[in-house]
Every structure is written in structure tokens, then in C-alpha cells.
């Protein structure tokens, strides 16, 4: 029996750069930063050392009904917006609900609901606690809501692996189709954690950039002046579809979703393993499972969060995996524009990799004014890079607290 192939037939997103994937990609190509000031009240009341984040370009209440807003945590609102858009982009395929699956990852889940309702319990008592609190705060709230919205009954899954969640969920969707459990899976990631508490926690870790006086320049992966990541929110979702199914209905195919590679560091709960042993294993596994060789990979969308330690660890891991072959792989660092969407980051960047292969174009990073000499990679800056003709493949890296490493490979069709 020949192996079932998985292709990408729809894309949807809501991000700091736009309310749609088209606007987001336009923002990426224009080199826009999604950074915006945080509410002054937060900064003053909680004495936050960081005064900005990449918040959504389009508020969900411009898209969803009042009742949808009330009954879904923001993380689920973003996921539903992106999932609906992705299905529409795929041509709203008619499919047996039993063959339609969902896989939506998140790093933190319904943290707004959890903390809001705790405040309500303390201030107003139990009768004011919203009866939907639990189904809104649970990590699978987005997968459940998307499944409800789309009538998807093949299975609805939530991967939770911190900032690798979104990428891992796409791998879950890929496996569902390859394994014959579904013909279409709506897969991606979502995050809505720009709330004072998680914000304060990341700030206390010294993980966030404090470049408060120049927020558009704060996210600067691979630049010597980088001082932490810029927190972001949003969702990215793709429609994964079995190749013959897509062909039979005449769907537009953006690219083939070729494989996923995964590993765990077992090194430290937050710090990356400095030599990149685990991360390189994930990358090599992804290339091998795609049936490709190093020479086929022409582009990497790096995790590149703009932290001093993380960016170097990833660069080491790429070199460790591919050696001299990495010279021929140009590297995009799109978090310089979007910020770090945590559990949605790998998903959104998966979408970017699909668009890079589809348009044969590697986006340029912004803010790399003084490239870190310790980063021995061909990082795309200034102008976008055109990718070669013929068969090409691209790698997408995502890493998460807990030591999770996920690499995806997409290739041209």
C-alpha cells in the first residue's frame, strides 16, 4: 500500500500583523513590527518592567458575535477565527464529519478565564462565577470549540508543549491523515496570554526584552543587541488534506506537509541544551522521515526568539545537524516582526514556511543591525531572498520550555 501524502490546502490566522493570513504575510514582506504599548494601567499598577507586546491587529469582537465572545476564552476566539478562515481558504470542502479532524495546540490555555474568574470568586462570591468557566479555561477549549464550529468528528486533539505546541499539533494532524483516521485535519496553534500574570512571570525570568524606548526594534533575533523575546498573541491554522482527496476536489495545493521530527532535551526545564543535541535530532529526523536529504532543504524558518542564549543554541543545533550543508540553507527569523506567539508560534511559522515554499521566497528579518558573529548561519536580512526553482523543501523549527524540540518539513508540489 502506498503511503498517504498530506498537503496544505487552506491557511488562516489572526496575528499582531493582521486579522488574516494575507494581511499578516503582507506585513512580513513589508518588514512591519507588530509591537504595541501595553495598557498604561497595567504597567503602573503592577510595575511591569516591560511596557509593550505584540497584541492582535484586529480585535476578535470585530469578527465574532457578542455571545461567541462571552462564551469562549480569548484563546478559543482566536483559534475559531483562524480555523474558519482556513476552511474558507480551502474552498469550504464538503466532507463527512467523521473524516474531519481538529488539532489545536496551546502553550498556556485559558489563562484569561482562569484568572478573571478567580478575581470574581474572591470579589463577588461563587454565584457570580461564570458557569462556563471550566470549559473555557481548559487547555483543550480551542480544539473543542473548533470541532463544534466545523462539525468535526474524527477527533479533536490538543498538544501542549509550550512554544512548540503549535508545530506539534500540525504533526498530530499529519499523523491523523497518514494513519487513515481522517482525510482533512484543521491544525494549528493559539495563544492569548497577554495578561499581567504570565507577563510578570516571563519578565521575572528575564526572558523578555525591556527595550521600552524603541519597541519596534525590540525583537531582534541574531543581533548582538538582543535582550529577550517580545510576547505576542494570536492563532495560525492550516487545513491539512490527504493528497488524493485534495486532487479529486480540485483544491488549490500550497505545498506538501512532508514530515515532523520530535525530540526532548532532558537537560533543564527552561534552558536549551547548549550544544543542540536534542534540537538537531529533531531536525534530522524530520528530513529523514520526509525521505529527503540535506541538499533538498533550501530554507529554514528558525525558532529565533531573540533571547541571548536561545538563538545561539539553535544556530549550534542547525550546524550540528547539517554541518557544511547548512551554508546552502537561508534562514528567516520572522519573530523579529510578529513577536513570540508562544503556543501559536510554531503554527504561524508553519504557515510562513508553506507560503515561503509556495511563493519561493524567504522573508527578511528586521532589526539585525549588528549580526552576532557567533551565529554562523545565512540569515536573510535587507531584501527577501528568492528560493530556487524545481523541487524545494523548507524546515521549520520550534522549541519549548520543558525541552521540547519540533521540526517540520514542507516541500513544493
Amino acid at each position, binding site marked *: 500500500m502506498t503511503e498517504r501524502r498530506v498537503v496544505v490546502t487552506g491557511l488562516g490566522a489572526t496575528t499582531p500583523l493582521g486579522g488574516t493570513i494575507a494581511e499578516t504575510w503582507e506585513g512580513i514582506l513589508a518588514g512591519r513590527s507588530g509591537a504595541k504599548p501595553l495598557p498604561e494601567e497595567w504597567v503602573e499598577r503592577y510595575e511591569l518592567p516591560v511596557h509593550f507586546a505584540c497584541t492582535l491587529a484586529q480585535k476578535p469582537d470585530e469578527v465574532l458575535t457578542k455571545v461567541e465572545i*462571552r462564551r469562549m476564552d480569548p484563546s478559543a476566539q482566536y483559534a475559531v477565527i483562524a480555523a474558519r478562515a482556513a476552511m474558507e481558504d480551502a474552498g469550504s470542502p464538503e466532507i463527512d464529519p467523521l473524516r474531519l479532524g481538529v488539532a489545536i495546540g496551546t502553550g498556556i490555555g485559558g489563562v484569561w478565564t482562569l484568572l478573571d474568574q478567580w478575581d470574581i470568586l474572591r470579589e463577588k462570591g461563587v454565584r457570580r462565577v461564570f458557569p462556563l468557566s471550566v470549559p473555557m479555561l481548559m487547555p483543550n477549549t480551542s480544539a473543542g470549540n473548533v470541532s463544534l464550529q466545523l462539525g468535526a468528528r474524527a477527533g479533536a486533539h490538543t498538544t501542549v508543549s509550550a512554544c512548540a505546541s503549535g508545530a506539534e499539533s500540525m504533526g498530530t494532524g499529519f499523523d491523523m491523515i497518514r494513519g487513515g483516521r481522517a482525510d482533512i485535519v484543521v491544525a494549528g496553534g493559539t495563544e492569548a496570554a497577554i495578561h499581567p500574570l504570565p507577563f510578570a512571570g516571563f519578565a521575572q525570568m528575564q526572558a523578555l526584552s525591556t527595550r521600552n524606548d524603541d519597541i519596534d526594534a525590540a525583537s531582534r533575533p541574531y543581533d548582538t543587541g538582543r535582550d529577550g523575546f517580545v510576547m505576542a498573541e494570536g492563532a495560525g491554522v492550516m487545513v491539512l488534506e490527504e493528497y488524493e482527496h485534495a486532487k479529486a476536489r480540485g483544491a488549490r495545493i500550497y505545498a506538501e506537509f512532508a514530515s515532523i521530527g520530535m525530540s526532548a532535551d532532558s537537560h533543564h526545564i527552561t534552558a536549551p541544551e547548549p550544544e543542540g543535541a536534542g534540537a538537531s535530532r529533531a531536525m534530522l529526523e524530520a528530513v529523514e522521515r520526509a525521505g529527503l536529504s540535506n541538499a533538498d532543504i533550501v530554507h529554514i524558518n528558525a525558532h529565533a526568539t531573540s533571547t541571548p542564549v536561545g538563538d545561539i543554541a539553535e544556530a549550534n543545533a542547525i550546524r550540528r545537524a547539517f554541518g557544511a550543508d547548512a551554508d546552502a540553507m537561508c534562514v528567516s527569523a520572522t519573530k523579529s516582526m510578529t513577536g513570540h506567539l508562544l503556543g501559536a508560534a510554531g503554527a504561524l511559522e508553519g504557515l510562513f514556511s508553506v507560503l515561503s515554499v509556495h511563493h519561493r521566497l524567504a522573508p527578511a528579518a528586521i532589526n539585525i543591525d549588528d549580526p552576532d558573529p557567533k551565529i554562523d548561519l545565512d540569515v536573510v536580512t535587507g531584501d527577501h531572498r528568492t528560493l530556487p526553482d524545481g523541487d524545494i523543501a523548507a524546515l521549520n523549527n520550534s522549541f519549548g520550555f520543558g525541552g521540547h524540540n519540533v521540526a517540520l518539513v514542507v516541500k513544493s508540489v
Partner: protein
Amino acid sequence: MAQSEQEILAGLAEIVNEETGLEPSEVQSDKSFTDDLDIDSLSMMTIVVNAEEKFGVRIPDDEVKNLSTVGDAVGFIAKNQA
């Protein structure tokens, strides 16, 4: 201060609209919360609590099951308002 049943109905319709999106004009005295307005028990909880706050009454959990129509709820609130 007690409100007229008409005022209570209008206020209740606003609460139902907020929770379910139903047009306030659909929220009429003879409508059943479950059979006509398709309001589930979770939404009903929220509507009850919001009504308690809005009308300054206490609606015990045991009482909620007796309030099958909008008119039942309006009547209960009118009777129990101080």
C-alpha cells in the same frame, strides 16, 4: 422599588440577549426557556444570577426549575421584589 411586569420583562429580555444573542423581541411571556428559546442549563444559571443582580431579588436554585417560561420568571421577580 418594585418595577412593573413590563419593565421586568424588558430587563430580562436584555439579560437573555446578552447571554444568548436572541433578539429581545423574541423573549415573550409565553415562551419556554428550554423548548422555545433553546436555553441550556448553564446559560440559565447565568441568566438567573444576572437577574438577581439586576432586580435585587434572590432566586434560589430550587426555584429555578419552576421557572419554565419567561412569564414564570417575570412573575417570580415581581412577587419577590422589595
